[in-house]
């Protein structure tokens, strides 16, 4: 009936999006098991059936970005616009004893000062309304503006609005807030000890997950080798180049409109709840975002801009300084990992015993879910029959932690991959062979119980990465040592299956044959909107330039959910695919009716509907649809796979839609006298299912690797007794062009993903392995494995010193 482009290998997609678009629902057990004819595993070349998808085209958004004309959130201004800023707590734990705005308000040009009592509903919700269920006891909520108690350095206490930035700066200084310092707790272990100061009433344990699968005790008792390791990750910041920003105003219908840098336009619901407005009266626009990485997943400026607009009835802009961004926006969880791993003589992993403790900082945010990701991913891409895991996260008076690319799936890579190296070394086996031997396969179950339904190409990614890396380089001189590290990982794409995830897209032909695509997806720099256009161009037979994508508008574009969790290609991609397929079918139906021919004989080719001896140019086909009262627009809604919510003791048939697998190789050189590390070369190979735009995929891989390498070697938000000492980018060490090596991305395509054309998500997965790959390489160069991040020159030197007697012992 249709001319759906088939993926290479001849295996037609079952077309989940078409099902969704046509029938309004998708099933969770889509027919992906069993492979089917023509599945050849991994290919690195693309077959010729696809016309647009698979091409390394320039992205739609990049022309304006390189021209310098893109209007980011902070670039926007309106007549009569006022300016807003937050007054934040200078202390990590204190009672607020007095607040006085009178001096600030006396300043000419100061417009208002708001405290928590002025906020209609002074609570920030931490879930996505309408989608999530309670997954762990969230005992504490967070005030929009703290009224009586502050729990971290930087917590907002007052909102100041003024005519100009100059006045604002002075007014903020004139707001008087007195504090009485309270005892705080700054370490998650200390926070869970009896008698620790309670960050919130009810104790400091925020979330806990357990896995108990198989018989661990028996497995350890019968093991040929047991290796233990503890690992510690640090507090890191997203450090996107664009600090948090937004402009708000009341439009002509009294709709409160916020144009903000965000990954989630659905926060309009949170804003409405805070302000006591109907959800229909709040609109969030997401312009192109200057980097997100999870840091713009929780609300940042939204409630404050909204409050300021309502109070002043004027347009208001709020832009956080870099210092505020580093101080107060939630960061990545510092995690302590303790692993015990058992293996038999052949190198089969028999059991894992894992303890995870994460620092959630002062407020819950998404901590419980981040910890769940850590738990689910904790054994890596390996078959492990016996697993005992306990994961906990605790409140402290440190900066809050929440979403950051990898979302808890990242930190554990350092743990499980270091353990794999150690097991291989203990048994005298090849590290690569050990990974291949234990690799998960289609049909295997993860320790939480989920059975993998798609191809697992882990071994192929290992081979591809090593082949691309070539021989290990020689040291550049005396006193230097070169090390090579490898690391593999898995990372989920798509949201937790009980979150009822959905995304919608609307696509319509204009009468001139151009295409309008509307989708609520926020474009945070990964080319989200452009990828949708590339999918639409493929299905509808038009060129990319003839497609205009309207995105990220909570009122005027169909809601597509968050640009997080590596979900947009899966969700909005499938929704767009479904909408375009439906539109194509409408077009064919219109032409069939016009010609009085059966629709089965028609297909859409670029620029024309074509059948046996028939060729109707697109413009005429569109007119035919009008005459035949056939719509030339379609809405596609894609529903993610569903499953039951988990309980604390994790045991589920499905937790995530699917996973992406990859392997990395890192070559580095250590100056054995100074501990300085030079990254020589880095290769990252991932099975992405299908590359919609290979260059965009490479961009995601390289960027994620860069961020991972920064965390491995350089970055840390330094906090002492709750006081954040990292006030600027001169202190927060984002890697520069000379800190990073040439990063090579190897893109493998199994055609096995759940996204359109068999694509898998790739936004988050490549950030996982660098921590472990660098640790592994440093171990080879110095003789001792570093386990505490970041691997500073000082810590590298400690490895050198510790290994001095045994240098060169490892083959």
């Amino acid at each position, binding site marked *: 009936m249709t001319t759906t482009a088939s993926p290479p290998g001849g295996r037609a997609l079952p077309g989940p999006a078409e099902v969704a678009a046509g029938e309004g629902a998708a099933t969770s057990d889509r027919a992906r098991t069993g492979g089917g004819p023509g599945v050849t595993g991994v290919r690195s070349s693309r077959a010729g059936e696809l016309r647009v998808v698979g091409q390394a085209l*320039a*992205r739609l958004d*990049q022309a304006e970005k*390189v*021209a*310098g004309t*893109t209007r*980011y959130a*902070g670039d926007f201004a309106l*007549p*009569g616009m006022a300016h807003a800023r937050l007054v934040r707590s200078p202390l990590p734990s204190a009672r607020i004893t007095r607040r006085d705005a009178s001096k600030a*308000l006396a300043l000419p*040009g100061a*417009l*208002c000062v*708001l*405290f928590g009592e*002025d906020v209609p509903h002074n609570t920030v919700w931490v879930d996505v309304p309408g989608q999530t269920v309670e997954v762990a006891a969230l005992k504490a909520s967070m005030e929009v503006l703290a009224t009586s108690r502050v729990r971290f350095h930087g917590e907002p206490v007052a909102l100041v609005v003024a*005519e*100009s930035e*100059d006045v604002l700066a002075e007014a903020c200084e004139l707001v008087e807030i007195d504090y009485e310092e309270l005892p705080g707790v700054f370490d998650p272990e200390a926070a869970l000890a009896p008698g620790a100061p309670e960050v919130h009433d009810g104790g400091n344990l925020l979330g806990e997950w357990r896995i108990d699968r198989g018989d661990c005790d028996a497995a350890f008792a019968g093991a040929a080798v047991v290796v233990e390791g503890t690992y510690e990750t640090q507090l890191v910041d997203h*450090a*996107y*180049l*664009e*600090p948090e920003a937004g402009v708000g*105003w009341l*439009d*002509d219908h009294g709709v409160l409109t916020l144009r903000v840098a965000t990954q989630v336009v659905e926060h309009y619901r949170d804003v409405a709840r805070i302000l006591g*407005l*109907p959800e229909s*009266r709040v609109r969030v626009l997401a312009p192109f*975002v*200057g*980097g997100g990485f999870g840091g713009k997943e929780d609300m940042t400026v939204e409630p404050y801009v909204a409050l300021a607009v*309502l109070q*002043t*009835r*004027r*347009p208001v802009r709020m*832009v956080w300084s*870099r210092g505020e961004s580093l101080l107060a926006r939630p960061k990545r969880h510092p995690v302590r990992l303790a692993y015990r791993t058992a293996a038999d003589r052949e190198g089969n992993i028999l059991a894992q015993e894992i303890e995870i403790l994460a620092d959630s900082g002062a407020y819950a945010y998404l901590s419980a879910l981040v910890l769940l990701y850590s738990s689910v991913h904790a054994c890596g891409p390996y078959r492990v029959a016996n697993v005992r895991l306990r994961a906990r996260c605790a409140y402290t008076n440190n900066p809050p932690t929440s979403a950051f690319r990898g979302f808890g799936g990242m930190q554990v890579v350092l743990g499980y991959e270091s353990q794999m190296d150690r097991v291989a070394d203990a048994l005298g086996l090849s590290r690569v062979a050990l990974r291949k031997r234990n690799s998960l396969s289609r049909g295997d179950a993860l320790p939480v119980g989920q059975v993998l339904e798609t191809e697992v190409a882990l071994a192929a990614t290992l081979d591809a990465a090593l082949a691309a890396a070539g021989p290990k380089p020689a040291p550049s001189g005396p006193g230097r040592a070169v090390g090579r590290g490898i690391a593999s990982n898995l990372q989920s794409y798509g949201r937790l299956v009980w979150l009822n995830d959905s995304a919608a897209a609307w696509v319509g032909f204009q009468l001139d044959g151009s295409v309008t695509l509307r989708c609520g997806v926020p474009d*945070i*720099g*990964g080319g989200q909107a452009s990828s949708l256009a590339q999918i639409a161009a493929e299905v509808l037979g038009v060129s990319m330039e003839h497609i205009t994508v309207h995105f990220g508008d909570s009122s005027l574009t169909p809601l597509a959910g968050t640009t997080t969790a590596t979900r947009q290609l899966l969700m909005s991609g499938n929704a767009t695919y479904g909408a375009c397929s439906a539109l194509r079918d409408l077009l064919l139906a219109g032409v069939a009716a016009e010609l009085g021919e059966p629709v089965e004989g028609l297909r859409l080719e670029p620029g024309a509907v074509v059948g046996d001896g028939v060729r109707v140019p697109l413009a005429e086909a569109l007119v035919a649809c009008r005459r035949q009262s056939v719509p030339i627009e379609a809405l596609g809604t894609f529903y993610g796979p569903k499953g039951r919510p988990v309980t604390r003791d994790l045991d589920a048939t499905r937790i995530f839609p699917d996973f992406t697998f990859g392997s990395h190789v890192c070559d580095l050189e250590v100056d054995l006298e100074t501990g300085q590390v030079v990254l020589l070369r880095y290769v990252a190979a991932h099975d992405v299912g299908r590359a919609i735009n290979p*260059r*965009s995929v490479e*961009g995601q891989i*390289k*960027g994620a690797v*860069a961020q991972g390498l920064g965390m491995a070697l350089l970055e840390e938000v330094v906090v002492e007794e709750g006081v954040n000492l990292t006030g*600027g*980018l*001169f202190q927060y060490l*984002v890697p*520069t*062009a*000379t800190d990073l090596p*040439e*990063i090579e991305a190897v893109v493998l395509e199994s055609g096995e993903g759940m996204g359109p054309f068999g694509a898998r998500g790739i936004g988050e997965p490549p950030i996982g392995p660098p921590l472990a790959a660098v640790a592994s390489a440093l171990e080879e160069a110095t003789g001792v494995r570093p386990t505490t991040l970041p691997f500073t020159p000082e810590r590298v030197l400690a490895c050198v010193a510790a290994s001095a007697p045994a240098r060169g012992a490892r083959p």
Partner: protein
Amino acid sequence: MTPTPLPEPATDRVRPADDHRPGADATPSPPRTGSNEVVLTLTVNGEAVRRSYATHASLLDWLREAAGVTDPKLGCGEGVCGACAVLVDGEPVSSCIVLAVQVDGATVTTASGLAGPGGALGLLQRHFHELHAAQCGFCTPGMLVTAAALVASGRRHSRAEIRHALHGNLCRCTGYGPIVDAIEAAEADPLLRRVVEGGAVEVAAIAGEGRLP
């Protein structure tokens, strides 16, 4: 259907203000008035721009708020990240830590000034575009300006040299490789090679092929 009325301001800590909804009043409120303004004239991307603005404004604020040139970005305010980089009389500076008043009369080139005639992408922009050197795009204007200063030397550079030239511009999306690719491609572009045979060129000459002889 009557819309729900908006809640009234919830506090007395607010000054009475006029309705400033866009469209609700014909005349926008006047720009900040009062002390410490100065009239400066800079040539920005080829056009003389004369504005009265705060004396203590950085060049970045002057460009963005007074002149409406928003392609240079505020990324840190410390001169570290390079998002605010512009060329002043052909040399790259961090416009967030230069006072506008210090460069009165200067010629300023921002990334948008590297466009070709009629707003078409300039040579460097074109290579950035084709090779995905921009992802989120927030560092891109500063990267382009830094790249322009490098390419204007007329010499072809090794990848290591290009990386060295970029080390003062942070990018959080690309890992830098695609940016290096784009600069390498621009330096090798036959259109550029033709004009740089004699050595360094005016930055303007690398903007667009339309400006090349």
